[in-house]
Every structure is written in structure tokens, then in C-alpha cells.
């Protein structure tokens, strides 16, 4: 007689052999789950937010490209629109201690308040754990995760990589387009783009 448990283990082993190696998240696949402490000291677990669209925004308040989108009010406007649709907006700061954009919890909150930013919450990721999990390369680097927890957009905020704020007008904002498609139930036209901006200060 064969041992069912043993065969189950064997099957598991076979399954593991064929599992892909841990790699950067892919659009169309499950967004990697993570747990982090936010600037309010509360635990944030991505998978607790299934059922809602989640935007991850990598930011660094001193980066000129972040300044481009916050100085012009572009990012705040997008946040407001998104929040009004019930989207959760998570700003993530992956700057390592001593590097540009590294701030304390209180500083992060103050910067957001001064700028009139309204993310759901802000996460300081000074170890770079979440940033590397998502292969976040630039600030800004935007990810959109749908209500099922699938990554549906990964890339730049828009299609004009100039640091000039004047180029925002007329640019195609990929994140807005993705959120609109999710709301309307249409296919997201552009789901993967090359992010532009300052390198994340890991």
C-alpha cells in the first residue's frame, strides 16, 4: 500500500521544483504581499486591503521629479480623485538613512500636510525591503493593484519624462488612465512603462 501522506509530500516537492524563482512582480500576476509599519505606527498589510484598488507611489520629497508633480499640485489632484473613488493610496519612502529623502515619521507627515497631499497612509521603508520586492527604481514609480490583488500597472506616472512642471499639461497620465479603466471595467491600455525620475536612494 502506498502512503498517501508521503505521496502528498512528493507532489509538493515536485510542485516546488517547478515554481518560478522569486522575481520582480509582473503585471497580470498577484502583487507581492508585504507588511510594514506606517508613519502612524500602525501595521499595514497589503493583503488586508483586497477588495479595494491600491496605488503604491514611491516618493522622495527632495527629488526634482517628485517636486515636479507635487509642486504643480498634479500628484495631490490625482490622489484626491483616487481617494474619492475609494482607492487606497500608499506613499512609500525607501530612502536609506543618510540619503536624500530620508525623513522621520513626523517629518513625513509634515511634508504631506504642507503639500496638501492626502495619501491613505505613508510607509517609511528605509531598509528598502518593500522597494526591492517591487523592484521600485525611481521616484516617482507607480504601481496599481486591483481589488483582486493583481498588479495591473507598473511604471511611470505619465509619458513625459521632462523634469519641467510645464510638461505635465498634455502628458498622458498612465495612473489616471489605469484607475479610470478599473472603474469603468475596461481593459487598461498601457500597463507597463519605463519609470522615470531619480533613482530610489536605497
Amino acid at each position, binding site marked *: *500500500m*502506498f502512503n*498517501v501522506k508521503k*505521496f*502528498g509530500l*512528493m*507532489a*509538493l516537492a*515536485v*510542485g516546488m521544483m*517547478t515554481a*518560478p524563482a522569486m522575481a*520582480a512582480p*509582473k503585471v*497580470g*500576476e498577484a502583487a507581492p504581499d508585504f507588511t510594514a509599519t506606517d508613519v502612524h505606527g500602525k501595521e499595514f498589510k497589503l493583503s488586508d486591503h483586497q477588495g479595494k484598488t491600491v496605488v503604491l507611489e514611491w516618493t522622495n520629497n*527632495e*527629488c*526634482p*521629479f517628485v517636486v515636479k508633480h507635487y509642486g504643480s499640485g498634479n500628484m495631490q489632484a490625482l490622489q484626491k480623485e483616487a481617494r474619492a473613488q475609494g482607492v487606497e493610496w500608499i506613499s512609500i519612502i525607501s530612502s536609506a538613512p543618510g*540619503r*536624500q529623502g530620508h525623513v522621520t515619521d513626523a517629518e513625513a507627515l509634515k511634508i504631506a500636510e504642507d503639500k496638501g497631499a492626502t495619501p491613505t497612509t505613508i510607509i517609511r521603508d528605509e531598509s528598502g525591503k518593500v522597494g*526591492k520586492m517591487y523592484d521600485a*527604481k*525611481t521616484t516617482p514609480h507607480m504601481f496599481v493593484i486591483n481589488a483582486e490583488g493583481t498588479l495591473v500597472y*507598473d511604471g511611470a506616472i505619465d509619458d513625459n*519624462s*521632462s*523634469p*519641467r512642471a510645464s510638461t505635465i499639461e498634455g502628458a498622458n497620465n498612465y495612473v489616471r488612465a489605469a484607475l479610470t479603466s478599473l472603474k469603468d471595467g475596461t481593459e487598461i491600455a498601457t500597463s*507597463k512603462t*519605463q*519609470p*522615470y*525620475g*531619480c*533613482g*530610489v*536612494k*536605497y
Partner: protein
Amino acid sequence: MISKVGVTRVRILSQFLCLFTLAMMAALPSPSQAQEMERYTTLNLIVPSYDIQAGETITVGLEQIIAPHWHTYWQNPGDSGAAPNMTWTLPEGWNAGEVMFPAPDKIEYGPLLNYGYSNRAVLLQDITAPLGYDGSPVDLKVSAEVLVCKDICIPEYDDFVITLNDPARAGDANPSLIDEARTTFPKSVNFAATYTEKKDTFILRTSLPEAMNMDLINDAYFVPLPWGVVDNAAKPVISFEGNDIVIKQARGEQPFDDVDEMLAVLTLVTDKGKAHYEIIADLDPDYAQMQAQALKEKALTQKTGTSIPLEDNDILAPSLILTLVLAFGGGLILNLMPCVFPILSMKTLSLVKMAQHHPGHARAHGLAYTAGVIISFLLVAGALIVLQLGGAQIGWGFQLQNPLIVAGLAYLLFIVGLNLAGIFEVGHGLGNVGNNLSSKKGIIGAFFTGVLATLVATPCTAPFMATAVGVAFTQPAAISLLIFAVLGLGLAFPYLLLSFAPALQSFLPRPGAWMRSFQQFLSFPMFLAVTWLLWVLIQQVGDAQLFSVLIGLVAITFAFWAWPRGAWLGKLVAIISFGAALYGLPVVAKKMDEGARYYQQTKNLTLGEEFSASTLDYYLTKTDRPVFVEMTAAWCITCKLNHASSIDIDATRDVFADNEVAFLVGDWTNQDTGITEYLHSFGRNGVPLYVFYPAPYEDGARPDPVILPQLLTPSLVEKTMTADYIEH
């Protein structure tokens, strides 16, 4: 008369030119400008000549002098950053061409990698005067924007105004700076180059001209213009094959579908320095190893989504009765298989001998044998069901995907062969092939003969039972097991029938002295089966492991020869030899992975290309070519037979060539998830499987794929591939 350098310096403010900065600051009209940011680039607009006529083109340069340790960016900035911008304000009819970039360097930036410049770089841009231009002085304005980064990034902007045909600058020309800049540009060449991807690796193959001396090249690297084709920070691996340079680098995240043109700068490093070439690579025609799981899944849903193909041996949902009949018939046929036949023959002959004296014993033997067969079938099927429930991507024939089992079967069949040949006689157990006519041990022996028959029959069920077995695994577990039980009953049936119907026994030849010769004769099919199993093993493990199995066979022979000779010494030697033979098996198992890799590397398709779901998807969606898929395995005799008789022949090769058929071969010798999934999508659980995808209709849609029978003939293959597939 060249009096002045033709360079407009609008502002020079930089960290490392402190004094100059202070001087400039002092000259500024308003103290509020003290807020001015520090600069890390000095931007100059280089104008080769201020004289231009209607329809003429001049090339201007944007010189970037970059502070030490800071860098600016290429067109594709790499992991972060942004390309520079030149925004021109030109009078009506004037035109500014694309910005042209010198060859970039790779610049490491923490875990990221950028493509750009250090120290100094000059970008070039063509400006063309309209045909109707009257030659009067004209102002051209440009706003230059350059991102410069060290550990932080700073965008820097400068506005320039150049006045062409300004009488004050008449004859003012300085083309040398532009000419010098051109030397830093990649040379546009038409080297043949292809790109492809395989297992998450981007592969660029560039054929250098024959005239080039490859020995002088110390190193090479490339930077691609499209973003995300490679993992920028990954180390490239360079190899030289004749006059080809092959560069492999981990793949990036942009699908090839989205890449318009694979323009790249190839840099060759020699003792004399670096030479840069701008090449345009074409997608490798054999391309297809798209690893993207999404595409693979898409391909599968496409396949299962299409309506069921037409061939009569396709079996997605035949009735249960029909399936059981097929299973029974299949079991019957197994009796004729070369691996089963010798055992059954001897068993049957012994039955005749027995039946003459003890009809009751004969019936008991028949039942025990049947039970042995059916229980063995149920065990193998049960194991497979449990494994599949556990998510393992395996199918029927999986037993032979494990080299340990193949080696074990080789040992077993070899022992049976030795026994038949009369090298040794065994009174009990395994050797119960014709002896132990009346003992109780004989009943147990009959049971194990059934087990043995099943064991040696399994390789044959893989190729011949695919239909029944395939259905079996699409059914609930209880029905699957029923099908296997009936299959086993089929295998046991002739013997069972003989043991219960003595009248039939009269048709069998009388026992006699000839039986001894016949028995010896039957050892040869056994040895053939052993040879075949060893051949299968070669494809699964390395030659060193094969050697240990061969030594094992000699040790076994020696063990059986030594056992009856001498008292304890002979037996001791026999036990040691047998132990040594068994020791070879774990060695084989341990080497399994390596062997599979070895096989992957060395197997050489003489015809066709390696199957993968993405390859198939590529041909089906990106080309109009018909596609022929062959699913085979080294241990599948039917597959080999079909291949030799109907596929790898001139006539079929011609049909492939004439119709531009893409021929994909999936080798299931070792476990392969992609192939198992593909087999499942056609309701199959084993090889062979032959599927033909006809060329698309006018409107681009493909006719349904055609499944060919499991036994091919050349004419059948040709007919399938040349038939008209009428739109319906």
C-alpha cells in the same frame, strides 16, 4: 578669417569654478539671484557655422561639461533618470531633427544601472533651413534641459539664442568641434544581428564582417535603445563563435511585442581602445522562448477554448462503456508486447502442464495472477491520481521519467532474461515462471507474476494506452480506478480464460523437450527490452551513471552464478555482488537532475525545433505558417516508430518545406510541465500526440487543430498537411 570660437556661452556657473561663479554672481543685476542653485553641468551650444542657405542643414551640438562623479543620460537612461530634451522655437519652415547621442557608458548607481555620460558629452542635432529662406538674419531659440545625477538628481536648464546669417558673424565657422564630437558617436553599420530570449535571458548575436580580426577583441558589451529588454544591472556574458559575438544578459520586463526596433550600441574593446557600432537587430526567426507565464496561459486557454478537433481517435468525451471496452481491448493487446509476451508465454505453457494434472490449481493460479495484475494497476493509477491531486504535472508514463525506475526495470528484465536463458534456476519467488506447479507458494508466485507482468507492461501502456488512460484522468477518481481495473483485467484475461476453460488448452502445443529451447529463445526479447531501457537511461542520466548500471548488470549475473556454487562463500560473494548492483541505483537517482540537464544540453533535434507553449503561441499568433506538433519521448516505442516511418522521411520533410510548416517537437523523456499541460489540453495523459494547426483563413482566424492518430503513415501525414481547410 576665423577670429572667434563659434560657441555661445550663456552662463557658466559651477561648483568647481568657484571664482568664476563669484565673478558672475557679482555681475548679476539683482541680489535676489543669490538663491541660484549650484550647477553640476556647463552647457554650451556649439554652432559650426553661422552661414546657412535655403534648404541647407547644419548640425549643432549641445556640449555638456559634467562635474566629476556626476553623470547625465543617454536616450534610454536605464533604470532611472531621464534623457535630455532640446525644445526649439523656430521660425516658420525651419526644422530641427532628432537629437543624436554619442555612445553611452554603463554607470552603476547602487543596485541600479544607468546609461549615460561622465565628464563631457556632445549631443548633435540637425537644423534645416526652409527652401524659401531668403538668407536674412534669423534667430533660433532652444531650451536645453539636462538631468544630472550623483547620489541626487538635479535638472539643469539653459536657454540659447543663435542668430544665423548675422552680418557681424559672417564667415564665422568652427566645424572642428562638431567633427570631433562625431568621433564619439557609434558608427552606423549593417552587421547582421538577431535577438531572442531563452529562459529569462536576452541573447544578442552579431555577425561581424569577415575582415574583422576577432583575436584583437578583448571584450564587448551593448546597450539597447528600447527600455526593459535587458535587466540593465545584470552582468552580460560574452562568447565568441567564429565571427559572431553572442552577448547574453538577464531579460528585462518589456515584452518583445512592444519593441518597435531593436537598436543597440555595440562596443568592442581592443588594446587600442573602444569602438562603438550602432546595430539594428532582427527578431530571431526561431524566436519563441517567451517565458512570460501570462503568454503561456493565454496559449493554453486558446487551445482549450477552441472547439474540439475532429479526428475520430480524439476522445474528449466518449461514453464510459466505450472507454471501458477500449481499456479492456488495450489490456488484451498488451499481452503481445515484447516486454510482456515472454513472461506470459512461459506462464501459459506451465499452465498447460499444470492443468493436465490439477485443474483446480490452474483456476487458483489464474485468479491469483489476475488479482496481481489488477491490484498493481490500481496501485500505479492510485499513485498517479494522488500525485496529480497534489498538483504535480505528470502523466501516464511518468514511471519511466524516473531513471531509478528505468534502471530498476532493466535489472528486473535482465534477471528474468537470465532465468529464461538458463543461466540460473530459481525455485521460488521472482523466478516463478514455469515452476512450483502445485504448492501454495505457487499461488503467491502467480500473484507476483501478475505484478511482474504489470511492471514490465507499463512502458508499453504509455504509448499504446494513451486514449483510455487520458480519459481515465479526466474522470472522478472512482471512475479512473475502474478504467484501470478493466485495463488490468484485459491484460490478465487470456490467462484467466485458459485456466478456466480447459477445452481451449487443447489448442496449445503439447509440452515437451522443445519447451526448453523455446524458453531460452524467449530470453532474447527480454534482453532486447533491457537494451532499450538502457538506451532510455542514457538520455536521462550521464554516461558515468550508465556505466554504474552496466556494472550492476554484470554484478547481478555474477551473483546468480555464485549463489549455488560453494556453501557460504559462494552465497556471501553473491550477496555482496547483488548489494553492489543495488548500490548503483541510488547513484543513478542522485544524478537524475544533472542527467536531465545533460540531456537537455546534448539532445540535438535533427528536424524541427523544441516545443514550448510560447513558441507555439508565437507561430499561431504572429505568423501565418501551419504548425505541426509532435509529442514524443525516448521511452515511447510508438513515438520512435512513427517518427522514423512517417516524419523523418524525405516525403514529409518536403511537405514541411513546401508548406513552410513550423515543426515543433516536445520531448517528454523527462518530466516537463509545459508538455504535460499541453497533453492535458487535448485530454491526453501520454505520448505520442500529433497535432496539426492549419494555416489561417483569409480573415486571419485559424481552423481548428487536427489531432492525428497515434499510428502514423506517411500518406496520412501528407494528407493532413495538404488538405483544404474550408471555412465553416
